[in-house]
């Protein structure tokens, strides 16, 4: 067994960390407060190669292994959840489906701009009536001549309504299967297609500097060549996309936990009460020790899931475990981090309160913690 990272992976960690500390950390607080998505910062992230990380160089991707991708997301999340969300959703949900299921023409048309971070792409899955229960979705696509006509709406879609948005992948019901269940198909819809509207969602508690949208499809007509893969592939494409997405959400939990822990440790070593740094008090030292243990466990679990994926072995169970564990871990660590900061922890300028808020999405997005437990319980034979 070899736990060493490769030279490449170590370099990626160092350089992404440096970028995040120098470019993201100074603006994270302000963007969060103003609830503002920064196209400028997204482009900078694109310049250093944070998009298209697992896409081949043919389409201007970085052709990295999955652990390298996860390390990059982790390092950005260590500084700011919003920017990590832009990257994780951009890669796993925006770029991923086009890369894995798209035709050569679709890849050529969209991937280079997305992989350079010049444009973003959304993945329209969740609907007002369909969250954990994908069966509740109502968006439909009907074939008329050589076109498909899409009607319906989507909600909570990342990267789908900002100035960099190029378009979205939308999952729609295209018929009924023999067993009576709906047949799903994914379509690529460019942002200027008539009848398509993307509206930014505001007043979020977390990820306030990432772009979240409601999507409306009112007789949106797309040609046949905009089908992603084949008619009827939509459900499996969605499942596969979410399996990969779980790893990047896991990376956000792990990175966020590390970031909150680093802030708490630094503060505990410098804050003095009763004549000594508070880290010397067992109550604080033990909290930090517990966090360190859990972060180590989380990293091993997540990297193992990524390793399985790199080896093209089944990784779905481990991905669900890593998503669940890393997400909830960040909740525990952020909670301790605020507690260790005392009153200052409640103030925005100390940053830990942002980690505390940003974490909550991880229990909910891309499969709630409850759904992960369903998935895991089935894998273990319950």
């Amino acid at each position, binding site marked *: 067994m070899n736990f060493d990272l490769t030279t*490449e992976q170590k*370099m990626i960690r*160092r350089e992404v960390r440096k970028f995040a500390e120098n*470019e993201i950390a100074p603006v994270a607080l302000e963007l969060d407060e103003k609830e503002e998505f920064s196209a400028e910062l997204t482009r900078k992230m694109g310049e*250093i*190669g*944070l998009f298209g990380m697992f896409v081949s160089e043919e389409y201007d991707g*970085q052709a990295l292994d999955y652990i390298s991708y996860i390390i990059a997301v982790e390092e950005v999340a260590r500084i700011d959840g919003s920017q990590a969300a832009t990257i994780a959703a951009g890669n796993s949900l925006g770029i991923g489906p086009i890369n894995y299921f798209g035709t050569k023409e679709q890849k050529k048309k969209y991937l280079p701009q997305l992989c350079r971070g010049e444009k973003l792409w959304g993945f329209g899955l969740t609907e007002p009536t369909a969250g954990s229960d994908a069966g509740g979705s109502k968006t439909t696509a009907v074939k008329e001549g050589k076109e498909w006509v899409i009607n319906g709406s989507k909600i909570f879609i990342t990267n789908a309504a900002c100035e960099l948005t190029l378009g979205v992948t939308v999952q729609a019901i295209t018929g009924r299967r023999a067993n009576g269940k709906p047949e799903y198909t994914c379509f690529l819809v460019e942002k200027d297609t008539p009848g398509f509207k993307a509206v930014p969602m505001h007043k979020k508690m977390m990820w306030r500097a990432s772009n979240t949208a409601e999507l409306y499809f009112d007789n949106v007509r797309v040609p046949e060549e905009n089908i992603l893969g084949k008619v009827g592939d939509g459900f499996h494409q969605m499942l596969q996309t979410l399996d990969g997405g779980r790893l990047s959400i896991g990376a956000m939990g792990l990175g966020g936990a590390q970031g909150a822990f680093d802030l708490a440790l630094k503060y505990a070593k410098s804050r003095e009460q009763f004549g000594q740094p508070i880290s010397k008090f067992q109550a604080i030292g033990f909290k930090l020790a517990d966090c360190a243990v859990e972060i180590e466990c989380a990293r091993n679990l997540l990297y193992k899931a990524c390793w399985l994926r790199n080896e093209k072995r089944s990784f779905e169970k481990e991905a669900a475990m890593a998503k669940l564990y890393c997400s909830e871990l960040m909740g525990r660590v952020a909670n301790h981090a605020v507690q260790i900061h005392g009153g200052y922890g409640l103030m925005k300028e100390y940053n830990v309160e942002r980690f505390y808020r940003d974490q909550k999405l991880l229990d909910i997005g891309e499969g709630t913690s409850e759904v992960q437990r369903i998935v895991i319980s089935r894998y273990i034979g319950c």
Partner: protein
Amino acid sequence: MEILVCVKRVPDTSENEIGVNSAGTDIDRDDLVYSVNEWDNYAVEEAIQIVDRVGGKVTVVAVGDSESEEVLRREMAMGANDGLLLSDDSFGGSDGKGIATILKAAVKKGNYDLVLTGAQADAGAGQVGGMLAAMLDQPYASLVNSIEIINDKTLKVGREIEGGNQEMNEIQMPCVLSIQTGINEPRYVGIRGIRKVASVEIPVLGALDLGVSSGSVGSAGAKVKVQDYFVPQLGKGAEILEGSTEEIIDKLIELLKVKGGLK
């Protein structure tokens, strides 16, 4: 233009809390995170920009143990074309003259128009650039904060002078320049650059390859030796302002007004 940039692996002050070791001979080097010396990084960026403008090649060189390879690889990911590690057990404990002796041997093996160093590194002595130039019998300019190429023999270089003044000089190549921070804005290392160099072999030259006699370098050849290393006692002239940030700012403004620095 063939450019050689000398780089050093140093403790990263942004990633570490630096303290003095218990023996009082050096900083405590356990568990330190290292990176490329900041001044050297500016020098590499400048070299890359020059080659982007006029063509040529940037080689980065470091004196150090095998771990120094990581800073060479990093600077290559940033855009330097080649790396060269000068490593030998006999190099350990070199003083500034020893390092310059080793570098001189490496410079002589190439055909460089321009050699750049950082203005200083972690030890703060700032002597290698000047000594290297003297040993090579080449012209030297220190604390360089701008470089303009006049022709293939001449550069116009700006130098930062005490008190905020600026000096412009013409200098003939081949020459050695020590680079001041702020001369440019070093680029970030991108993932594509990392992928390009992650598995590149970096050649290593030892004392024999360089023709350096082991008695002239390392601790054996060092004529400057650190005797003591400590954090100085606070003197009477210094006043440390205490309190919350707001209180400190108020006190500072008050002091500046009293001393005539603010009106």
